[in-house]
């Protein structure tokens, strides 16, 4: 009989009683040479929020430019960045903006927040471990990510062909990224991915080792909280996918600088090979960005329904299935490159298969809520929002999976709408849910429920106004990555820009909320969320001691706990 993670009984935590558990190093040693998983998690979160502000501001520039046909603001930004505004430089600036927005949001916002931030903070806490397996490597992972971000920022100040910066899209397709872009900007941008990728690979090794070797006694794999399961699957995806990206972009670097012709047909290479390599990484990458969100939503839905997760094993193995199948569907990003008809049929069928485990997750979340005693605290409303909006992004994914249908919407705003529903809503809603769920634990302060709910509703309206009209733009044929358009696309573009302003207002509410909590928030109890919050982190103080679990907690199975409650001897 399988027991679930959320029904285990933990012995009372001993950590708080330790005398030197709270001895912290000095400021520089603590924050720059940190080996503490919670401090590194905090650094990752601060870094992700900072990068998110940059990436979000860039989308503000883009939405302003797209509010009406014609080129309005790009020249102004070219001059601000120290370049010389002319027609090509202005349009190049657009390509730099879309490239930077994509790379920042993927590699420097979502991934650091989910994996580096919440993963670092809560994987050790949830499995009852004192820290990550390789604390020094953890530190290297973080600073490599920072170095990667720095390299990307530097790229915007150096020549990149028709203007300053790398204007190649986050996908960096050859030959635009090789012979198509002179100047060092593209090299800086590619090197930024090398650095961030190396950091992520080291992080993945750290998570896998930690989860396999450092679980508290009694915490079997089938008792791990689903968030830990999601991080385990994500870490494997990172470990298998990122080296392929590293190889692909290294080949870009040598094509650019050392005369190789991997992706140049003139030298016997093939530009399509780059796309195969990129998407062999790129498709697992989208699951890397959403799987931790699945884990977070599972924890939160169970907590606030005061019910264990429905179908725990199904949930865990659905994530494993998504991870495995996610490696054999990559060419659905390349339906128009001129694939063979049989190849296209295979990728159509394989892609649709992913909808099955994804559906299992959505129905299981609803079944978890079914029969529950639901409290609509801030994390829960964000989690419910995520379930619905991710469903919308999921069904458009099934639509796009059809290779023949894709011919009309490929590289249009329909695709932009689809992946923002799964990421900007799926991933980001789970990030905010997790933030409100764990902020009291991390900071020891309560945020304002009122402001959190207000943030949710304004953000919900804003992002839907931005991205829902993009479906219609795409169906009408508006291509992606266009700074200017025919007047027939004005109405919905204008609406999306209005949506952006609403979304931006909601972010102001978020920052006010965080400031309020840090400066004047009520002190958070060990467990602010009640009896539904059963995982180990809630047995610790808020914030947890600098070093926790110096005596490992022992996880009993349900039967032992049941026997103990009824005064029978436990055979645990």
């Amino acid at each position: 009989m399988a027991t679930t993670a959320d029904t285990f009984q933990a012995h009372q935590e001993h950590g708080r009683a330790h005398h030197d558990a709270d001895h912290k190093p000095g400021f520089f040693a603590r924050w720059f040479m940190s080996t503490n998983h919670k401090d590194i998690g905090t650094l990752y979160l601060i870094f992700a929020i900072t990068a998110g502000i940059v990436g979000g501001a860039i989308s503000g520039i883009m939405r302003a430019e797209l509010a009406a046909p014609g080129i309005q603001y790009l020249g102004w930004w070219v001059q601000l960045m120290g370049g010389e505004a002319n027609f090509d430089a202005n349009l190049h600036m657009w390509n730099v903006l879309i490239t930077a927005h994509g790379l920042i949001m993927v590699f420097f916002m979502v991934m650091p927040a989910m994996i580096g931030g919440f993963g670092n903070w809560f994987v050790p806490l949830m499995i009852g471990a004192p820290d990550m397996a390789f604390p020094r490597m953890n530190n290297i992972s973080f600073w490599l990510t920072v170095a990667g971000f720095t390299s990307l920022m530097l790229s915007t100040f150096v020549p990149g062909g028709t203007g300053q910066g790398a204007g190649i899209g986050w996908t960096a397709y050859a030959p635009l990224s090789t012979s198509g872009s002179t100047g060092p900007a593209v090299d800086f941008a590619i090197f930024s991915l090398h650095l961030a990728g190396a950091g992520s690979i080291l992080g993945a090794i750290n998570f896998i080792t930690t989860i396999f070797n450092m679980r508290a006694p009694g915490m079997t794999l089938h008792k791990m909280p689903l968030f830990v399961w999601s991080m385990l699957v994500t870490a494997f995806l990172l470990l298998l996918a990122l080296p392929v990206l590293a190889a692909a972009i290294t080949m870009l670097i040598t094509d650019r600088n050392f005369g190789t012709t991997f992706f140049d047909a003139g030298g016997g290479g093939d530009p399509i090979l780059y796309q195969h390599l990129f998407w062999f990484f790129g498709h697992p990458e989208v699951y890397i960005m959403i799987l931790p969100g699945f884990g977070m939503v599972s924890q939160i839905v169970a907590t606030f329904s005061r019910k264990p997760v429905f179908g725990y094993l199904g949930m865990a193995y659905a994530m494993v299935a998504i991870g495995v199948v996610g490696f054999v569907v990559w060419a659905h990003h390349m339906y128009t490159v001129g694939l063979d008809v049989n190849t296209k049929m295979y990728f159509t069928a394989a892609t649709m298969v992913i909808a099955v485990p994804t559906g299992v997750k959505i129905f299981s979340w609803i079944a978890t809520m079914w029969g529950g005693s639901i409290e609509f605290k801030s994390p829960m409303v964000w989690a419910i929002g995520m379930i619905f909006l991710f469903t919308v992004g999921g069904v458009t994914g099934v639509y796009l999976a059809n290779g023949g249908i894709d011919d009309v919407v490929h590289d249009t705003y329909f695709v932009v709408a689809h992946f923002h529903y799964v990421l900007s809503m799926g991933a980001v809603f789970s990030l905010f849910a997790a933030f409100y769920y764990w902020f009291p634990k991390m900071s020891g302060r309560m945020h304002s429920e009122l402001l959190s709910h207000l943030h949710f509703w304004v953000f919900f309206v804003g992002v839907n106004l931005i991205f829902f009209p993009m479906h219609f733009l795409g169906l009408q044929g508006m291509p992606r990555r266009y700074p200017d358009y025919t007047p027939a696309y004005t109405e919905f573009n204008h609406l999306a820009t209005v949506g952006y302003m609403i979304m931006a207002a909601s972010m102001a509410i978020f920052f006010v909320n965080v400031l309020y909590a840090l400066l004047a928030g009520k002190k958070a109890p060990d467990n602010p969320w009640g009896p539904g919050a059963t995982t180990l982190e809630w047995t610790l103080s808020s914030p947890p001691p600098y070093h926790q679990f110096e005596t490992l907690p022992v996880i009993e199975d349900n039967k032992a706990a049941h026997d103990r409650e009824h005064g029978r001897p436990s055979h645990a």
Partner: protein
Amino acid sequence: MSTAIFDFTRTRIGRMLAAVALVLALAIAVGPLAARQVVAPAPVAAQTGPASANEVATAAARTTPGARPAQAELAEGSTGAAAAGSAAYTPMKPTPGIGMPVDGRLDVQQQFSPTGRYAQKFHVALVWVMVVISVVVLALLLFVMIRFRAKANPVPSRTTHNVGLEVAWTIIPALVLAAIAFPSISLLSQQYRSPPKDAVTIKATGYQWYWGYSYPDNGDFEVISNMLPEGEATRRGEPEHLGVDNRMVVPAGVPIRLQATAADVIHAFAVPSLWFKIDAVPGRLNERLLEIERPGVYYGQCSELCGARHGYMPIVVEALPMAQWRAWVRAQGGTFKDEAAPAAAPSVAPTQDPESAVPNAPGAGAPPVAPATPTPAAS
């Protein structure tokens, strides 16, 4: 524990979810029917399109006698005769809302190719599947949020398993997906039909940042197509940002072997109203069958990021009746294998020069769109 497949109907939660699954299945079955009755009034123009568009397009062809006397003559006259040297070709006027995007429209553009019309029907069915699934999930969420809120249900159940239910929500979506897969595979095989041997071959080449259309079976002349500068498209009665100086002129109603390649970076040849998109990759020749059912003007845009002016290399396909198309080819200096007579002097000089025939077009080497003070070409 019994694992009978209908075990779940014994619990209340199981019965309710089973009912929902039934509703979902019914909705998917009935959805497309309901769609016709409920939604038909709104896009009336689009629904009645095939007939009315046909009229509009042929009317456009007929009612512009002043614009194309030579072509009208040729259409009726002997197709084999060589065109007169003075046969002036005048670009066809587009029909508003046909072959181009329309502001505020929620659906795909009206389709003018056989595969496009099949795809559009399939697309409508898929939209209903998407709507029904989203609505069902939303309804379930709202129901549990109300029914199982803490006030209404203070004591939570401890139900964590229901084998029947879990099997059901694995099998039912799998069946829905299987039902989607059949028309999907069928659409793919239609799109990948090989063009017949005698199909007209046209090669579209993507350049930074303009298109070249060459006609390898007709003397291999190449037409260079640059976007019209700001204001010029409106002056010519075309949608702004979509009009070009020289169009890709093709015959309507016959199979076309469309080949795409590129000279520098990857571009993509895309025309939404023909459900057609194929990447133009340097060093590679992609080929696809293109059939355009009736004469008309169909707009598209480059659909793969290709550098600075990616957004400034639109595509205009002008489909003409065969006789008029042959006249156009001859006017370009092109030839036909089935006739010996060489063409007379072309009315629009075929050119390999990327410079646009129209001043200030934002093509390669041309100055920016309608600059306040024109700057000299940078090439």
